């Protein structure tokens, strides 16, 4: 009973605050608890940092942004219900989710209701379903992985490679693109090794790669599994170059893997460590506000909020259909739109492109070796 009363009070407080006129409502639907919480909370923190800045500067078209947070518990079915709830509660735009397995479910709801949705998910199929309302904040694996093809062929001069990937929505997307890319340039994939999400024991995986005698290994795992993989690779003295996309060289992986991470190389779309003024400045603001470092998901959230502001102000109204139309084929130049941090474009499918980086872990630090132009 007390719980119910408390719940009712919480609800009425929330309602009182929504009664204030001249606000625009945003539904943040993300992984605030459950397995995806590390990613979802970063996305949220990045977004809320931007919202504070935007509101302090007068909001969007004079309206203050009011964000309602919805926790998916990292469960796709719950996320579907919550996107519905956000839309029932008049969300103008939905931000999230970060996990592809959730996004692929809940984007149907936003599409049916004609509500623009800015997601942090990176699985290729999200922008391949002809959904005109979904937009990314980081490009999908089918854009990221091909950027590595040249590295395998020209820099490493690899003839045979192995791929270690996590067998879920995220990993399968990257794996399938990688296999296609390698076939295109005539590199043999001689060891193709899936593992479970949350896998802890990579002894067999590494030993198979060792046996396969390859020139390089493409590691497409989540952060924690990447760290375990790197440690096992070091233990078994695995020689070939380890190459990843986004996750392999992340700060979290370096913290967990220790010196086993040294020498790992990755192509990174967004990195908080990039030697670029705008990103460093954002990183400092983020750390000042929250007391911990940001990662690529924090940047995604920040960008989602600013994209919402810029697109709406371009339209001059809060028209959702027009929002989607404007954003297709749009390029936001960072010189004019500093909130984007990097110049960013969206194509007709909501897919994104911006410049990216090749990084290598040297002495426990991410070092940007080259910058890859936007594609």
């Amino acid at each position, binding site marked *: 009973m007390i719980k119910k009363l408390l719940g009712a009070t919480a609800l009425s407080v929330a309602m009182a605050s929504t009664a204030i006129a001249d606000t625009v409502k945003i539904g943040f639907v993300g992984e605030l*608890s459950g397995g995806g*919480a590390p990613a979802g909370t970063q996305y949220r923190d990045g977004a809320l940092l931007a919202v504070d800045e935007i509101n302090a500067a007068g909001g969007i078209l004079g309206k203050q942004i009011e964000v309602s947070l919805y926790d998916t*518990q990292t469960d*796709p079915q719950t996320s579907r219900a919550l996107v519905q709830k956000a839309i*029932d509660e008049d969300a103008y735009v939905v931000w999230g989710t970060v996990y592809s397995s959730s996004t*692929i479910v809940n984007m*149907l709801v936003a599409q049916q209701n004609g509500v623009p949705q800015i997601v942090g998910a990176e699985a290729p199929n999200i922008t391949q379903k002809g959904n005109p309302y979904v937009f990314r904040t980081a490009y999908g694996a089918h854009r990221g992985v091909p950027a590595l093809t040249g590295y395998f062929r020209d820099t490493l001069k690899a003839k045979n490679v192995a791929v270690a990937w996590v067998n879920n929505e995220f990993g399968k997307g990257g794996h399938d693109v990688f296999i296609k890319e390698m076939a295109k340039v005539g590199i043999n994939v001689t060891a193709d090794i899936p593992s479970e999400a949350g896998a802890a024991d990579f002894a067999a995986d590494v030993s198979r790669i060792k046996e396969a005698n390859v020139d390089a290994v493409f590691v497409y795992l989540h952060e924690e599994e990447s760290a375990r993989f790197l440690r096992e690779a070091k233990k078994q003295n695995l020689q070939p170059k380890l190459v990843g996309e986004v996750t392999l060289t992340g700060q979290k992986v370096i913290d967990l893997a220790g010196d086993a991470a040294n020498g790992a190389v990755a192509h990174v779309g967004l990195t908080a460590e990039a030697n670029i003024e705008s990103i460093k400045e954002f990183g400092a603001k983020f750390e000042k506000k929250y007391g911990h470092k940001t990662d690529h998901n924090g940047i995604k959230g920040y960008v989602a909020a600013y994209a919402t502001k810029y697109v709406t102000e371009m339209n001059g109204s809060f028209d959702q259909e027009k929002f989607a139309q404007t954003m297709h084929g749009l390029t936001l130049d960072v010189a004019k739109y500093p909130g984007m941090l990097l110049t960013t474009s969206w194509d007709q499918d909501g897919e994104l492109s911006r410049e990216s980086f090749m990084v290598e872990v040297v002495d426990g630090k991410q070092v940007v070796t080259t910058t890859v132009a936007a594609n």
Partner: protein
Amino acid sequence: MMTKRNMWLLAGLIALILAPLGQGNYVVYTLCSWLIFSMAAMGLNLTLGYAGQISLAQSAFMAIGAYTTALLTLPPAEDGVGGLGLHWLVAMPISVFAAFVVGLIIGFPALRVKGHFLAFVTLAFTTLTFLVLRNEDWLTGGTYGLVGMPRPDFGFFNTGKQLRFYYFTLAVFVVFCLLMWGIIRSPWGRAFKALRENSIRAESLGVDTRRITLLAFAIGSAAGGLAGSLVAPLVQFIEPGSFALVHSLKMLLMVVVGGAGFFFGPVIGAGVVILMPEFLRFTEGYYLMIYAATVIVLIIFCPKGLIGLGEIIRNKLRKDKKVRGDMDKGAQL
């Protein structure tokens, strides 16, 4: 003549009919999942509450129901994974039957052995089901799942809209409850109850406990299949993760929280699990902790679940009534 019990049931039904009116799509959707999970949990209640066996496979049976229904009702595809384009009315009985048969196949060996081996076998089965759904993508769409299952159209009544789908679910729920009521009151059902009250005595009275337990488990599995058959058109998207072990655990706790062995216990339990996060949203990440702790406290102090708790309170308030009589009636409800 209306008995007091029937009046309560009628009131409950009217409440369910009125509940979604004037509500947003989200609330209606949540009510739908409540009814669906109630059915799965009521099926599980047969196994747990009546036969006293732990099953951790209810989500796997939901998966069987959901994937069977999806593959039968999805339109045939030019490329990729497609279905047969059959009507839900055809797909549903096949799904239920499939779950029933698999239940028999799983339960038969597990129940040969005394002890809690059904718990282990069903646990293994749930994880195996997940792996098959994830790996055999030629049939199940693999990790990407299946999308776009049509909601049934009955000609005069198309359930495409959320509210209409709710009434469709409610109708299935009512029919399901009547069927379950019938089963509980049949000779089988009386054997279930005898089993629950005292399995040794039941055995000595000539009840083949092993067969009855197996039957309870298989019927419970079929209920899981029915729930799955409704999940497919409700969510219109299914993927292996939605039927992982953790969901079996969730349903098991629904039954325990509501009151194992009480007819409507699982409905209350499902309500707590599905609707409570709404009321406890302000607790943020602590929700699951509070929930788990509540379950433990409830098991220690009130093993009969929330329904049992209600009875304890009622008995405290009305000292004049005989405690035993009241308990018996509660068990029948």
